Structures are given as structure tokens and as C-alpha cells.
């Protein structure tokens, strides 16, 4: 298959960026999107040109590194899949493909298709944990947890922290990301002691990092590669209000 790529090139956060056109030729339909870019990059390197910078590591949709907006959609046309899980057979031969980084004020650009998502880490550092030191735990089976609760906690815990939810939101909100962690821990008995403290600290950090607010468009859920439900946002809001009112 052959494609024409329009790729966002930007040296660093201080330089201006632009779309640059590259041909991608003789690509196998079974290639993944990343493998297709690697073919283009090998060609560029052999000509002594600067290859396209991008982040990707596990290539199976779990590490959360890849962060490309493809034809206007974070992670491209595949539902419930990351960029690295996208195969070229999902595109038409000869298609023009537009590739940009995940854009958000809270994700400063590093280079080309790579952004700095450490604002997500700071949200977790503010409270996305249970305070238990190593060695202080009781026997695992002394905390029975109803299977349904465990399963719901798991659904929320699947978040890979890629940031598609932010890139897909017109407000650049990180509500789905934050809510997924808040809801996971709020579902579990171990998470109760810090439940209300946690939600307040995480939401405040989220706001301070420059993420926008939620206006219920649900784009986040639509682009989430793990299909995490927006219902967790409602749960987080409920806990947040409770925490604020009871304070």
C-alpha cells in the first residue's frame, strides 16, 4: 500500500512547527501504524535527514507511550485501540494521512509527535495512592471484596495514562484520567480512609496543572483506548462535592 503522510514537525517547544509531507511506499497492510512510520524514518535516516520523533514502546497498547492524533482523532480511527495497535489495513490505499501530537496546554511539546505528560504524574502524586508502607499489610484474604466491586475497580484501573482523553476534549480536560483513579480506589475498602482527601487533592492539582473543565461532550470516552466510562466522572464529582460540603 502507498500513503501520503502529512506530519507535524516541530524542533522543540520554542520553535514554530509545520506540517511536512512524506510519501510512505510499499507498506504491508498487516503493518502497524508505528511500523509504517519506522519505514519512513529508516528512509529519512539513510538520507541523513532528521527522522520523525515519536514515543512508542510496548507496541501492544498498554504502556501508554504512543500519542498521535491521526486524521484529527487521538489514536486514529480504531475503537478501543492505541496508535500502536492500529494496522494499515484500516486505511485506504493512496490515502492522505494527517499526523499530529496530542495537543493540550498541559502537555508541552517535546519534539514533533512527542509531548511531556508529567502533569498526569503530578495528579497521581497528589493522592492517587493508598498510604501503606511496605510490610504493613495484613493477609490479602482478610479483606474480602465483592466480585462486582473488584470488577468495576478493575475497569477504572485499566487507564494507561496516554492522554487521549485530554487531546480529544475541546476543553483539554483531564477529568476522565483523574476520575478513573479516584473511582478505582473509592470502590475498594482499602481506599476508604483517604477517599475524600484524595479526591480534593487530585482535583485541585488537575486544575492547577492547566487542564480544562468538563462540559459533558463525552469525547474522552469515545477516544479512550481502554473505553473507560464517563460514569466515573460523575462518581468523582459526587465525591468531590461531598468532600467540600462536609469539610
Amino acid at each position, binding site marked *: 500500500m502507498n500513503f501520503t503522510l502529512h506530519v507535524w514537525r516541530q*524542533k522543540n517547544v520554542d520553535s514554530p512547527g509545520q506540517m511536512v509531507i512524506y510519501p510512505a511506499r510499499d507498506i*504491508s497492510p*498487516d*503493518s502497524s501504524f*508505528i*511500523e509504517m512510520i*519506522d*519505514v519512513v*524514518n*529508516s528512509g*529519512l*535516516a*539513510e538520507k*541523513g535527514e*532528521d*527522522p520523525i520523533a515519536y514515543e512508542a*514502546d*510496548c*507496541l*501492544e497498547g*498498554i*504502556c*501508554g*507511550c504512543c500519542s498521535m492524533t491521526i486524521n484529527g482523532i487521538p489514536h486514529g480511527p480504531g475503537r478501543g*485501540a492505541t496508535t500502536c495497535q492500529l*494496522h494499515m489495513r484500516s486505511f485506504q490505499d493512496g490515502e492522505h494521512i494527517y499526523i499530529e501530537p496530542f495537543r493540550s496546554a498541559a502537555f508541552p511539546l*517535546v519534539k514533533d509527535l512527542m509531548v*511531556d*505528560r*508529567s502533569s*498526569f*504524574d503530578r495528579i*497521581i*502524586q497528589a493522592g492517587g*495512592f*493508598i*498510604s*501503606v*508502607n*511496605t*510490610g*504493613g*499489610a495484613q*493477609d*490479602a*484474604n482478610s*479483606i*474480602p*471484596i465483592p*466480585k462486582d466491586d*473488584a470488577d468495576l*475497580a*478493575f475497569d477504572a*484501573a*485499566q487507564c494507561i495514562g496516554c492522554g487521549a482523553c485530554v487531546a480529544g476534549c475541546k476543553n483539554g480536560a483531564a477529568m476522565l484520567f483523574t476520575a478513573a483513579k479516584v473511582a*478505582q*480506589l473509592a470502590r*475498594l475498602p*482499602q*481506599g476508604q480512609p483517604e477517599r475524600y482527601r484524595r479526591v480534593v487533592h487530585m482535583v485541585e492539582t488537575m486544575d492547577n496543572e492547566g487542564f480544562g473543565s468538563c462540559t459533558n461532550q463525552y469525547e474522552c470516552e469515545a477516544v479512550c483506548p481502554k473505553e473507560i466510562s464517563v460514569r466515573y466522572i460523575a462518581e468523582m464529582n459526587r465525591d468531590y462535592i461531598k468532600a467540600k460540603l462536609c469539610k
Partner: protein
Amino acid sequence: MELDSKIPSGPIADKWTKHRFEMKLVNPANKRKYDVIVVGTGLAGGSAAATLAELGYNVHAFCFHGSPRRAHSIAAQGGINAAKNYPNDGDSIHRLFYDTVKGGDFRSREANVHRLAEVSVNIIDQCVAQGVPFAREYGGLLDNRSFGGAQVSRTFYARGQTGQQLLLGAYSALSRQIGLGKVRMHVFKEMLDLVVVDGHAKGIITRDLRTGKIESHAAHAVVLATGGYSTVFFLSTNAKGCNVTAGYRAHRRGAAFANPCYTQIHPTCIPQHGDHQAKLTLMSESLRNDGRVWVPKKPNDPRRARDIPEAERDYYLERKYPSFGNLAPRDIASRSAKEACDNGLGVGSSKRGVYLDFRDSISRLGKDAISARYGNLFDMYQRITDENPYEVPMRIYPAPHYTMGGLWVDYNLMSTIPGLFVIGEANFSDHGANRLGASALMQGLADGYFVLPYTIGDYLARIPSTPITAGSEHAAAASEVTKQTEKLLSIDGKRSVDSFHRELGMLMLDKCGMARNEQRLKEAIEQIPAIREEFWENVSVPGSGAELNQQLEKAGRVADYLEFAELMCRDALMRNESCGGHFREEYQTADGEALRDDENYCFAGAWEYTGKGNSPKLHREPLVFENVPLAIRSYK
């Protein structure tokens, strides 16, 4: 160089308890005077950094990823072992110990493995307390399943994403300490050298991947938790960024590298499809609980799997290993698949594949039950291959997956350089010549949560706590790193870094992969230096060193692989026996099983670096089996 394993005396079950009492402690008020560098924040490094900070040490953690949550541990699927015996099926610490020693084909250290089995139970408690959502039964208690090489169900799991959930647990503990200011986290920083001062590890040199800045960091001790080196084969199940650089550069500074040839080829991966493929995808071993492995009895059978009648299928694992069947250990299952394909029985367009068939379990348990167990794996398979595994059998083939070899460490997890500790997949310690499923996660967390935090204290308590700063040794190491970077950028050749990596990988898979022999290993030892030479003359690394430059990062890693691969082949050539993942064709039994030579090779082989262009020197650590008698490993 002296190898002193420092195994405590006394009965196996008491060694760790006794040793914990005998080790020196650092007074709580003094702990903050010690700086500890932890390189790598996967399961091993993340858990270690968090625990050390909880204890009060000053921790500086590094990873080349943009966040500690992105380490390769995140990709582990199947589960983690622990001797909890919740299912009441006969498990015990001793049985987990026994299975792991036997699974490692008697090439691991008994005392380490026993300690691993002991602390396995604490890991599960710790993770549950952190909120890790393990699979549960309707009664609310934890669920277990079985994995290869065991006849009990001792594997805890979180759907097909156990590694993700465990890593996020460790990451949350680490994040808490970062938030409290007790860990300084350095992301996007790659360690490119170890600094040794007066024979002790005292810091590292890093390159900031965003700005290209070369920086020196000083500390009282250094912990490497930098993962495995399966990507020496180019195509493997590992994440693209996995590499041997940190370990290899420490090796050049004096740390012995043990058993580099012990690599694990995992039996259940999706077969390769084309020339541009960047990695191979693992299908979790847990699938072998319900899937049956078979090939057609007739070579080049053109029929579709469904049209081949029962009598014309060879369920070869069930036939050859009736007591373990489809759950035979990895090395054995992989070799059997290769053998079937070598005999022309392979399936799929490349003929390098065997079937993993769920037809019988779907008719026995129903599609829903199978989907609840493996839904995400089935989806992943379908997404990659465009085939529906509920309808047609999966096609699988072995792929490089895990490296048992690593930097040599003593019982305290300290390398041959005092003050340099190595944990997780990066060390050689617990799996011998073959790792059993679900035991890498166990080892990484055992090292990080429960072993290193004790043993590092014993080292620190013996050295002064005076503040430590970068000195002339740091400056010298930093300037060497800068020189190598400049050299790579100045070659201005014609071939991409990947093309060299691919060439090396194919050579290694062919000559130092699932089956090895003297002649092919000797050929590899001749051919690798030639590739290396061409690399240093003809590699193309565009751009500059003063910015994000991913080709430069890769070039540094491939340069190390081009040296390290030779060490692997030398190790494989030295070991004139077959054991676990190391299969030498010359040494096999009449029915094709691995033939160990306990008389001559019952040792861990630790290699000392002797300078550029010189042959490495072998040191032997004898392995003594007092509790699990040396025996032929049989799964029949």
C-alpha cells in the same frame, strides 16, 4: 575478581531469617544522610525506590521513559506466583521453591530461590493493600489459576493485565514518595555509565533525552533495575526500548556478567508476518490452561484446521508429556514447536506456527466462560491477525521473551562492584537456566519490596554517611560518554541503526537462539565483530547531540549489543551441556531432551571484562544442591 556468594549458613528455611538478624542496620535518624540512586522504575526499581524512601533514605530514581508508569513491566499479562495455598491444593513455600529450582533446570542458587518463595506471600498482601484489583471469586476472596511447570494453582492475576496492575501499584507507592519529596524522580534520563570511586559504585552519568545534556550524579550506592536484554534478537516480545546498556556499561566498569546465554524463548507468540515487523506479540501462557496445542500429522497439510479430523492431529505436548501436557514448561514447549516445524508440520503461510485450539474448552465451558478468562487476549489476537480465535485455532510460534542471565549478584543482591546492587530481570539470580511463568513479577517485587531494602542497609551501615558529591571520576566518565556520543554523530554513514540491529538480531536468533551448536556459535563469534566494525564506519545518525535524538539513543544501545552479543555466544559455546533455555544440539538424550552435565557444568558462569578487544575471563560459582537433589528434569 573473587565470587563470594555470601550464602548464610544453616538450614535453608532459616537462612533468610537468620541473615536479617545478622545484618547491620542504619539508625533511623541517619538514613536520610545516605543518597541512593535507583536506575529503572519498573516493578523492581519502582518498588525498591518507594520502599527505600519509606525507610527514610534519600532516593534519586531514573528512567529513560517519560514516566515511571511506562516501564516494560506494564506489559506482563498472565500473573504472579505466590505460595499462599489459598486453593488448598497442596502448595507450600517448599513446593514453590522446589518447582522453581527444578524449573530452572538446577542452575540457580537454592538459598536465593527459597527466600523468593518465602517472601512471595508478602507480595500479594502488599499489592492488595495498595488497591491492586486482582481477580476474585464471588465470595470476595482472591482467585488463582495455574501456569506452566506447576501442578498447583498459585498464580494470582488481574485479567490479562497483571503486570499493568502491579506496576501501577508500585508506581502509586513511588508517586506518594515523590509527592512527599523523599524521592527525586528523573524522567527521560538514560544512564550511560557507572562511576566507580576507589572500587565502590558512587554514581552514574546520564544523558537528558530532551536536551542532550550529559549529567553526573553522585550517591552512596547505586541500584540497577534496568530490565532484560531480549531485544538483542531485535524481534522479541519485549518493549522496543528494552536494552542492555546500563548493565553492559557497569560490566565494563568491573561488574561480572553471569550466564548471558540463558535466554528464554516463549512458546506462545503470534508468528512473524513480514520484514518490517518491529516486535512480536506474546499470547499469555495462561492460554495453555484451556487451549490445546497441535499440528497436523501430515506434512504440508493444505486443509483448514477445522477440516482436519481428530485422528490426523498430533497433540504433541499431551502425547510427549502426559502429566503436564499443554502446561509443560516454556523451554520444552518451545523446543517441541520448533521440532514440529522443522519436520515440516508447521501451519500458516510461513509454516513457522502451530495451533493453539480452544474448540474443546469452548464446547465444555461455553464461549462466555472463555471470553471472561481471556477476552482481551482473544481481541488482541484478532486485531493483529484479522482471524477470530473463537472460530479458528490461534497460530502461535516461540519468540525471545526473557533473559535469565544478568549481572552477577551475591545473596545480598550486590554485584562484584561493592555498592552496586542489581535487582529484577537485570540480575541473574533466581531462575537458573529457565524461568517458570509468573515468577518474574514475583522476583522483581520480592527484590524491590522485601530483599534489597534490608541488604542495602547492611552495606550502607558500613560506609561513612558524609555527604557525597561528584568528583574527578565523575568528570572523567562524563567526558567518555560525551566522546562516544560525538563519535556516533560524526560517522555519517549510509545505513540506519535499525538495519544493523535487525542484522544482528537475525544472526543471534539463528546461531544463539532456541538450538545452538559449536559450529554455528563459532561462526557467530566471527561474524559479530564484522558487523560491529561496519557499524562504527557506516552507521547514519543524523541530527545533533544537543536535542532529542532518538536515532542517537538507539545507536548507543545497538553499539552495546554488538559487543554483548559476542559475550552471549562465548558463554553458550563454553557451556558444553544443554540446560533449560540453553539447548546445545550436541548434548541431548535419545528422545531429544536436554542433557545436563552436572559433573562439569554445575556452576554459574560469571564473565569479567578485561578490556576492549581482549577475551573476557570466566569465573565459576559452584552451585550446591542440598535440598532439591539434582535429578533429570522430567515432565513426562
